[in-house]
C-alpha cells in the first residue's frame, strides 16, 4: 500500500496555508511532519483525511484494490482506511472509559471481537483500573490516552496523528511509540505532526516552511479560479 500526495495545496480562510507539497509513504513507514506553528501541519493532516478540500494537486492510494484510489473521487473508500487523532479526544464525559472506547471500536473497526480489542487497548494504555469510571473524572493525560487508545481498537491501516503526545508523560509516550512501531510492523503507516522525538527508527521527516506573511500567488497553479480565490 502506498499513499502519495502530488503537489497538494491548501487554502483556508482565504489564506494559502501550504502549496505544492509532494510526498509518498509506503506500508510500514512513518512520516513525521515538522515545522513551526502555523506552518500547516494540522491543515495538511485534515486535507489528507478528506475533511478539508484540496485547493490543488491530488492524493492517491495504491495497493488497496486493483485501481489507484484518488481522494477527491473515492473519498469514502479512502476515509474508511483512515484513523485520525486531532487536538480533541472525542471523549464523552457521560460515558465510562470503556463505553467511550467500545463506541470507537465499532465505528472504526468491525463489530466482532470489539470487546477483546477494547480490553487489550485499556490494558496497553494503563486505563483498565478506571475502565468502569465516568470519563468526566479523567485527568487530561488520561483523556489523551483514551483518545489515543482509539487507534489501537481501530482496524485501519493509515494513521493521521496531530500532536499525539500532548499532555502525555514519558512512560505513556513510550507506550504510544511502541504502538506506532507495532502498527508499522503489521504493514500499517502513520503520518504524525509532532515537536518531540518519538524515538522511531524508521521515521522519515517532512519539514514544512512557515507560511509567508500575507497572501501569496501561486504562479505555477493551473487552476485560474484558485488564484482568484486567494485574493478574497
Amino acid at each position, binding site marked *: 500500500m502506498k499513499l502519495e500526495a502530488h503537489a497538494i495545496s491548501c487554502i483556508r480562510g482565504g489564506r494559502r496555508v501550504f502549496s505544492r507539497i509532494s510526498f509518498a509513504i509506503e506500508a510500514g513507514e512513518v512520516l513525521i511532519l515538522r515545522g513551526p506553528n502555523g506552518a500547516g501541519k494540522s491543515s495538511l493532516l485534515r486535507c489528507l483525511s478528506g*475533511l478539508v478540500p484540496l485547493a490543488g494537486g491530488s492524493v492517491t492510494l495504491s495497493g488497496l484494490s486493483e485501481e489507484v484510489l484518488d481522494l477527491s473521487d473515492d473519498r469514502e473508500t479512502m*476515509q*474508511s482506511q483512515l484513523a485520525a487523532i486531532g487536538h*480533541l479526544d472525542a471523549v464523552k464525559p457521560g460515558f465510562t472509559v470503556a*463505553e467511550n472506547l467500545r463506541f470507537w471500536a465499532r465505528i472504526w473497526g468491525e463489530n466482532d471481537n470489539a470487546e477483546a480489542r477494547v480490553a487489550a487497548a485499556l490494558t496497553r494504555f494503563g486505563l483498565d483500573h478506571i475502565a468502569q469510571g465516568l470519563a468526566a473524572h479523567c485527568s487530561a493525560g488520561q483523556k489523551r490516552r483514551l483518545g489515543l487508545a482509539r487507534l489501537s481498537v481501530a482496524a485501519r491501516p493509515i494513521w493521521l496523528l496531530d500532536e499525539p503526545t500532548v499532555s502525555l508523560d514519558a512512560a505513556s509516550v513510550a507506550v504510544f511509540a511502541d504502538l506506532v512501531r507495532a502498527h508499522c510492523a503489521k504493514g500499517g503507516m502513520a503520518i504524525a505532526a509532532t515537536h518531540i522525538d518519538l524515538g522511531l527508527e524508521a521515521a522519515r521527516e517532512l519539514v514544512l516552511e512557515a507560511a509567508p506573511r500575507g497572501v501569496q500567488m501561486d504562479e505555477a497553479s493551473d487552476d485560474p479560479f484558485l488564484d482568484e480565490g486567494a485574493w478574497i
Partner: protein
Amino acid sequence: MTSIFWRDLALAFRIGGGAGQALVFFLLAVTLLAFGTGGEPDVLRSVAPGALWVFALLSCLLSLDRLFQADVEDGSMDGLMLASTPLEAVVLAKAAAHWVTTGLPMILAAPILAALLNLEPAAYGMLILSLAIGTPALSLIGAIGAALTASVRRGGMLLSLLVLPLYIPTLVAGAMAVRASAAGFEAWPYLGMLSAITLGCAALAPFASAAALRITLS
C-alpha cells in the same frame, strides 16, 4: 449506524444529556397557555389544535442545537466523518435518536395535555396520529439547521431563525388535521400531506445535513 443511534440515545439519558427536557417544556408551555388565557374552556377548545402543534415544534427545537454541536466541539464528529457508514446514514441515525428522545415522549404525553386544553374528545386519536406522522419531519428538518449552525457558538437563536420558517408546512398540515377532526370533518387529506412532508424530509434531509456538515467542518 445502529451503534450511533444507541450511543446518542444512551447519551441523552446520562447526566446533562437533556432527555425529557423537551417534554417538560411542552408541559410547561401548555400550562402557561391555560393560565394566560384565563382558563376559559371555550377559548382553550378553539386554540387547542394549533397550540399543541406549535408547542410540539418549539419543544423539538429546544434540544436541536446540540444535535451535532456537541460532537463537533469534542472532536467526535471528525471521527464520525471517517466512519465506514456514509455521513448521510450517521445524520439519519442521529435524527432518529433525537426523535425518540423528544418527539416520542411528546406523542405519549399529548392526550394528557389535550385534556388540559379541553380539546374535542373526538380529535384525540387524530392528535396522536398527526404528531406520530409529523414529528419525525421536525427532527429531520431540524437536522439541516443543526448541521449549518454546528460550529456557531450560541447558535441556538440562529438555528431557530433558520428552521422555524421551514416548519410552517408541517405545522399547517398537522394542526389542520386535528382541527378538521375536532370539527367532524375528514382529516385524511391533511394527514396525506403530512406523510408526504415526512417522507420527503426523510429522503432529502440526510443529504442536505451531511453536505452542510462537510462545509461546517472543512
